[in-house]
């Protein structure tokens, strides 16, 4: 994965660069909006990370220019601004995802991988998703594993569908809160954990092989291996 990081804060940049390098990803770092725009327009990246408040050119403005010039590379925007409006503005500018500082590296990495590996047409519109012996049929909204139909609640179905679309990738708690529940805040209670654990008791418990695994400190992975 080839990542462009546009971030003026040294501390944050070092934290992200180090994390990405250790994960074996290639990262290029520039410190202001204009430089970021120029580098991104080159189009050699799998995913772009733009800070919201940047010198020379504001992050959201740079993203807007990129999108208007036809650059489709996935963009994740980082910000210290946590207001709902700030989030809306960032997404309206053309960012694909929005992450509020401070965040765990695992959270950012999970989102980067989700964005970089996205195959919009194939995955998002496929009628049938399958992982190992589990098959999800979108037309009937039914899930079978090893031929056995699983009795899922609508929300459990949605969680499973999201995980299957990101097979092999870490799906974080916050990603689920945002995508499944539409939450823009962090609830105190273990909402996600409770629902995932119920889902697991239906998806994995009756079978001898676990498909959903917990990734300590970051989230869950659904994979056949």
């Amino acid at each position, binding site marked *: 994965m080839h990542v462009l990081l546009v971030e003026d804060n040294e501390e944050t940049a070092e934290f992200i660069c180090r994390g990405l390098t250790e994960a074996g990803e290639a990262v290029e770092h520039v410190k202001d909006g204009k430089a970021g725009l120029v580098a991104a327009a080159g189009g050699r990246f799998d995913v772009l990370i733009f800070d919201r408040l940047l010198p020379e050119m504001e992050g959201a403005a740079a993203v807007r220019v990129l999108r208007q010039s036809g650059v489709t590379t996935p963009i994740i925007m980082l910000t210290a601004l*946590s*207001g*709902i*409006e700030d989030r*809306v503005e960032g997404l309206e500018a053309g960012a694909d995802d929005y992450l509020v500082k*401070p965040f*765990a590296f695992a959270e950012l990495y999970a989102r980067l991988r989700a964005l970089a590996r996205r195959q919009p047409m194939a995955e998002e519109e496929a009628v049938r998703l399958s992982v190992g012996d589990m098959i999800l049929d979108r037309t009937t909204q039914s899930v079978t594993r090893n031929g056995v139909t699983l009795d899922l*609640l609508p*929300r459990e179905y949605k969680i499973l569908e999201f995980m299957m679309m990101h097979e092999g990738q870490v799906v974080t708690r916050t990603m689920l809160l945002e995508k499944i*529940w*539409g*939450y*823009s*805040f*962090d*609830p*105190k*209670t*273990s*909402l996600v954990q*409770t*629902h995932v654990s*119920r889902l697991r008791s239906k998806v994995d418990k009756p079978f001898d092989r676990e498909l959903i695994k917990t990734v300590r*400190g970051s989230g869950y992975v659904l994979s056949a291996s």
Partner: protein
Amino acid sequence: MSSPPARRTFSSVIFLRALGIGMIALVLLLTFVWSLEGITRARVQAAMRAEIEDQAYEIEEIYRLEGLGELIDSARREGRAVWPREWLTEAIHEEDTLFRLTGDEGQTLAGFDDLDPPEDFATIELLTDENEIVRIYTLRFALNDNADLIIGRPMPFELQDFRGMAVFTSLLLVVLVLPLSGVIGYSLSAQVGRRLGELSTSVAAVGDGSIDQRAPLSDRDDEFDRVSGDINSMLDRIGTLTRNIRAVSVGVAHDLKTPVSNVGGRLQLIERDIENPEAIRTHLEKADAYLGTLLRTLDAILRLGEVEAGRRKAAFETLDISALTEDLSESFEPVLADADKHLSSKVTPHLWVEGDRDLLTQMITNLLENVAEHARDGASAWVSLKRHERCALLVVGDDGPGIPETFRDQIFDRFFRVESSRSSPGNGLGLSLVRAIAELHGGTVSLRPDQTGAVFEVEIPLTGGLGQP
């Protein structure tokens, strides 16, 4: 720089107004006095003229019937047709008619020689032998080509004095009214200035920081006392708010300090267990959880600020609060079940409100999390949504243990926690956010009284009062 008190009193509005009113009163009074004088004079003159004309007519009758000689004879008194001046005083005192008959060369034929008006109808002044000035109305007319008759009536003494009185009254008014209004103005202004001065001193003292200072109150219950009373209630309110802010600051500091010191504690444990990766991992996870608490508190503070600033109102949409409530109670049913609470829900479908989906989600979530945290183990909890007049009425309740009556008014205050030890999780902002969000939507939130558990009621106005999009 403030001017000295006396100068301030003179330049005060009240003083200048009093002086102005004095001037106006003076002008009105003078106009009145002189109009009265003028009207009276005109009426008396008209009456006397009529009287004189009557007598002239009588005398003319005598002349016409008897002739000039007889007329002169009839005027003869003590053998004298031409009367001496000494008789004038007496005639005037008896209010007799004065007359003079003149010949063709102006010589006096009969009556008083001094009666010599310049015009046919005139007022003349005569000096009596007692040195009194007497004002006399006169009428001159021709009896025939050679003889003129002049008839005179002394002006009544009352009327003679009238003009003098008018002059005197005017002078008196000028001398009295202006200084009096000045004095009244000054004393009023000084009095008002003193009361206002006291008020301004105490307000200035509050401005300088002594927030407990209050405006002085007398027992007169006058307008100053009312203003002082209003200022005092305002100061009381400000005082309460200030104390609240102080309490909130302490709350913020405390809520932020606890997780930070817990993180610090874990860092020390990591140093101690540096050789034990498994222990370090545990410490890191705990430290991370503490930081999560800290960030949630900060997020809640920021969110509360954002809601209270009202900026979100621009992004309101028409949304189905029934679907939202149903969805959230379904989501939280297993969460509450894990916390040993049984949640049931009863939602009237298709109630629409104008609102912000994110914020309403947070509001309902906070109420449900409140149940998860505070209801007793094994408690029954419920969510209901129905129409109530022009509002959607959301009820989130449990059957115990509830909130002590003494805390009813405080539970929506920021950082208020029933357990003041703050040992259990939570930041005391959840219900503050609920209230702020309800109020942003033009609604209210309240705790239903006399319940075994905590039962919260939120009312949000329905779209168009009907709840249909």
